[in-house]
């Protein structure tokens, strides 16, 4: 259905001498004009850069190796040397409490965790894992879902029915429960897996990445398949077939380009979803495994210290919030840019 203005505007762009603008260029231009979306993208990239710089921070700024426990370590606060683990914590004053945030980038900026490690440094390293798993699984998921959707939508009939039913069954499992089940199972392989010549260790980041990718495939599959079906029925595909185009060529040069925009819109939103999923799994100890850390594992570690040293749990949550928020805002911007109706959306 064309809105009234679209009908009115049907004349626009049809004047003689106007150069036809390719829809991708139009979309890019719209995106460039969307300052909020660009700001969000900037925030996301900033976080990525910060986390990538984790080793730099750990070595040159904080001078720590944040991974091994540091129960007997010391650090400097206000010029004085203090132990990282302080005696006399808890209600009975018999426990040990790590140092709280010093707000000094060089020395335990956010304080220590339950075993005396530098939380700020861990936070950045955790970000690397969370981002790697999140982005990796989203990309894997989208690729897999697109392939399956292309096959199902293009060949139709029984192939489509079978694949769609398969997707339905996977999706019938509550997402988190399926992820937890798979993770639990795979983690009992303490020696890792062997795929031919490739050995994947049990604590590899690939495990959560693949699991999270798999559980969301049905979710991404559905809209892409819908898009494939609507393209397959369009006349230009029939025209191509009439010209003698073979299946492979049809899929790659006619159908795929029209489906790509759907995938592009889904991608930032999927990364947001996978990051949240990874953090939940890691919080439950079935996601990222030691010796790796992720934002989720740090929140888990901080649970015991929630009422005494809340920053250990709060800081990673804030990082997740900012990352996911920026991805959501940017994702909205991408969707608006690729949506033709956005042309009319001047608020106020």
């Amino acid at each position, binding site marked *: *259905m064309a809105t009234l203005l679209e*009908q*009115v*505007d049907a*004349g626009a762009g*049809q*004047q003689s001498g106007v150069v036809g603008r390719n829809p991708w260029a139009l979309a890019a231009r719209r995106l460039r004009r969307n300052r909020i979306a660009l700001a969000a993208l900037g925030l996301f990239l900033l976080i990525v850069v910060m986390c990538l710089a984790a080793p730099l921070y750990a070595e040159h700024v904080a001078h720590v190796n944040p991974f091994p426990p540091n129960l007997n370590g010391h650090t400097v606060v206000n010029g004085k040397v203090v132990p990282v683990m302080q005696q006399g914590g808890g209600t009975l004053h018999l426990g040990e409490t790590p140092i709280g945030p010093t707000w000094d980038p060089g020395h335990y900026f956010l304080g220590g965790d339950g075993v005396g490690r530098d939380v700020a440094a861990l936070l950045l390293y955790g970000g690397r894992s969370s981002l790697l798993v999140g982005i990796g699984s989203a990309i894997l998921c989208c690729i897999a879902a697109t392939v399956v959707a292309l096959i199902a939508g293009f060949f139709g009939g029984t192939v489509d029915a079978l694949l769609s039913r398969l997707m339905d069954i996977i999706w019938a499992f509550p997402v988190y429960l399926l992820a937890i089940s798979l993770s639990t199972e795979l983690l009992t392989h303490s020696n890792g897996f062997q795929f031919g010549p490739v050995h994947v260790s049990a604590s590899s980041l690939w495990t959560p990445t693949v699991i999270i990718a798999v559980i969301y495939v049905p979710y991404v599959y559905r809209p892409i398949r819908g898009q494939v079906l609507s393209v397959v029925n369009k006349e230009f595909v029939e025209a191509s077939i009439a010209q003698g185009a073979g299946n492979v060529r049809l899929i790659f040069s006619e159908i795929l380009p029209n489906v790509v925009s759907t995938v592009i819109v889904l991608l930032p939103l999927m990364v947001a979803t996978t990051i949240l999923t990874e953090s939940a799994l890691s919080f439950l100890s079935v996601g990222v495994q030691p010796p790796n850390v992720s934002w989720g594992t740090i929140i888990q570690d901080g649970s015991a210290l929630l009422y005494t040293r809340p920053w250990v749990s709060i800081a990673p949550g804030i990082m997740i919030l900012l990352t996911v928020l920026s991805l959501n805002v940017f994702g909205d911007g991408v969707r608006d840019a690729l949506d033709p109706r956005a*042309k*009319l959306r001047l608020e*106020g």
Partner: protein
Amino acid sequence: MTGEPLLEVRDLKVSFRTEDGLVQAVDGVSLSLSQGETLGIVGESGSGKSVTMMSVMRLISDPNARFEGEVLYKGRDLMTLKAEQIREIRGTGIAMIFQDPMTSLNPVYRVGWQITEQIRAHENVSKQAARARAIELLAAVGIPQAAERVDNYPHEFSGGMRQRVMIAMAVSCNPDILIADEPTTALDVTIQAQILSLLRKLKDEFGTAVVLITHDMGVVADMADRIAVMYAGRIVEQGSRREVFYDAQHPYTWGLLGSIARLDRPKPRRLATIPGQPPSLLRLPEGCAFGDRCAHRFELCDERPPLLNRVDGNHLDACHLEPKQKKELRETTIHPELIETAE
């Protein structure tokens, strides 16, 4: 016709702010409609004909739209009325039917419900009375087994039937004016004729004034008392049916007439076409908007847009050509085969 015009549009201008600039959809349109009269508005996509009539009913809710001018209905300026007042007029004073009956009817409610909704919004009648009236209306517009079909959903009707339902709904409160926006465009040619004759029948029976919006000269040939031809947001010719069909003054009208295949003349080798495309409403040219596509354009046409001038009585047109020139050029423009046979 006699007396005050029922509806008078005075210099209506409608523009939309878009990302790319200001789109002037309607650029100073003036119309009048008398009681019982049928006005045909003819133009291609983007000519502004729909926007004009939707603005009359204040149905444009786009926050980026700007309106100027007056729309007088029974003496009151509709542009200045409050929401509640306009709401009263819609349906009872002025009603409108739209192009695509499939999407214009709410798919989740039965058609009887939709008709009674309109009736009960304006009149204090019981549900049963409203329902009885709905059944009567459906029968009047030619829906067989109206008493059963009143409980059907829109998707259970064929395209032509749906449009009849829409018409039934629109006339349910006896409006003074019925605006039909391309009522037959989405329908098969055979059904078109049925719908048009239905409109004519209702018009004759109830004395409703009708505004018939279309891009097809053939649709107005039979029904319209007066015709206004629109192009690029402006009226380029306006007159009685006879005047527009037999004494057309504007080259665009000639083009429209020429593109109709005639059964009563020798078969032309080709139909006259109007080359080119309508101008972008973002950047209207300085001179005549039709200039680019007009075979008879000269210097004055590029300098300033022609104003509507009176040819004779109520026949107006907007073209810089002299009346004598127009007479000479008309026949050959509409029927180019005459040039060929003359050679």
